[in-house]
């Protein structure tokens, strides 16, 4: 009985510590009040947008309900901070609603451009399957590579390096 009580106390303390650590690390507000809706766009407009860029692009397809996207988001943020001047990072929010999408962006502080693709028209245009999926795009707007599933740090770094070599 005494042992159970001790275990319970320890468990409670552990949960409180974890909650405190997680809370301390998450400083961004979870519900944004002033962020504008993500712009909806068509595949033709999106293709023209990519073709008009003077640098390579990484297009990440995400959704607020997508569990792997949550773990991918911090990696994309790191990549944007490191390579944001050489590579255009673009998010494509699919099969989502604006409120949850904005909460997701605020939670992870994803500070690059995002577009709204409710029915996956753009993703289907580029042949992407599932969520998350990431497209690596050459400076002329041509699709270089599609990565299906979650991106880890090494994979993203490798594909960014390939894009930069292509650009140089």
């Amino acid at each position: 009985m005494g042992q159970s009580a001790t275990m319970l106390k320890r468990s409670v303390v552990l949960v409180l510590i974890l909650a405190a650590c997680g809370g301390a690390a998450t400083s961004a507000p979870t519900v944004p009040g002033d962020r504008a809706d993500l712009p909806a766009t068509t595949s033709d407009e999106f293709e023209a947008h990519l073709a008009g860029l003077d640098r390579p692009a990484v297009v990440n397809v995400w959704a607020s309900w997508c569990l792997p996207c949550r773990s991918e988001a911090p990696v994309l943020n790191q990549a944007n901070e490191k390579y944001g001047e050489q590579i255009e990072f673009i998010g494509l929010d699919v099969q989502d609603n604006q409120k949850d999408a904005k909460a997701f962006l605020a939670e992870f502080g994803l500070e690059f451009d995002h577009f709204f693709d409710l029915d996956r028209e753009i993703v289907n245009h580029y042949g992407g399957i599932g969520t998350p999926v990431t497209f690596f795009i050459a400076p002329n707007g041509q699709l270089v590579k599609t990565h299906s599933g979650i991106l880890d740090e090494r994979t993203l770094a490798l594909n960014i390096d390939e894009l930069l070599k292509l650009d140089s």
Partner: protein
Amino acid sequence: MEFTLLWAAFTAIGFSWVGTRLWSDRLPDHPTDRMIGAAAGGLIAGRLVAMMVQGINPVTHPLDIVIVRGGVHTGAAAIGAIVTYLWAGKWKIANLDATAPAAVLGLAGWHAGCLWRGACLGTASGLPWGWAEPGSAVTRHPVELYAAFGLMAAAWLTSRLPWRLLTRAGTALVLVGLVRFLTEPMRLSLTGGPVGWYLAAVVVGGLGVWFGPRISNRLSTAPT
């Protein structure tokens, strides 16, 4: 759903199993099971810390822990694995020495598992053995295979050492830290890699090699 990480894990288990057959002296019972348990403990610890570092609260988003590809904190994983292993063996430190060569070989297997994951390549290289990504003209260092070979050599070297408290385990930690430290510049990374943790492993392992036999002698000569 993709299973490449799972295949890499199976490769690691296979390598560690071979290690327990090659170097079976003084091993505790069910050594491979113990190592798998320790790896699981390390994985959980490493993933939890990685989530907190990334700003994901593990209490409010507990399912995120299964997204291993989101990142595993190297230092926390190593500490978690060692602590789990010691706990499962009733804190018998000599078990670390007995298991060290097989564990290092298992780690080599994890790196060799890059062949299944398509994740062997690092920085660009003009060396004749460089590999290119499919569809790419850029050849690169197969850096994960360098690490795998380095760790295989480390496992063998560790197995040749004398049986003194923490000599094998400490040396294994030093060699693993060194192999990872030396190969890190050839890895592509967004954050520079956990170089500090590799150096910490070298220092902690070195302290183990230095103090382990002395503590052992002190205990054996202490009056009862």
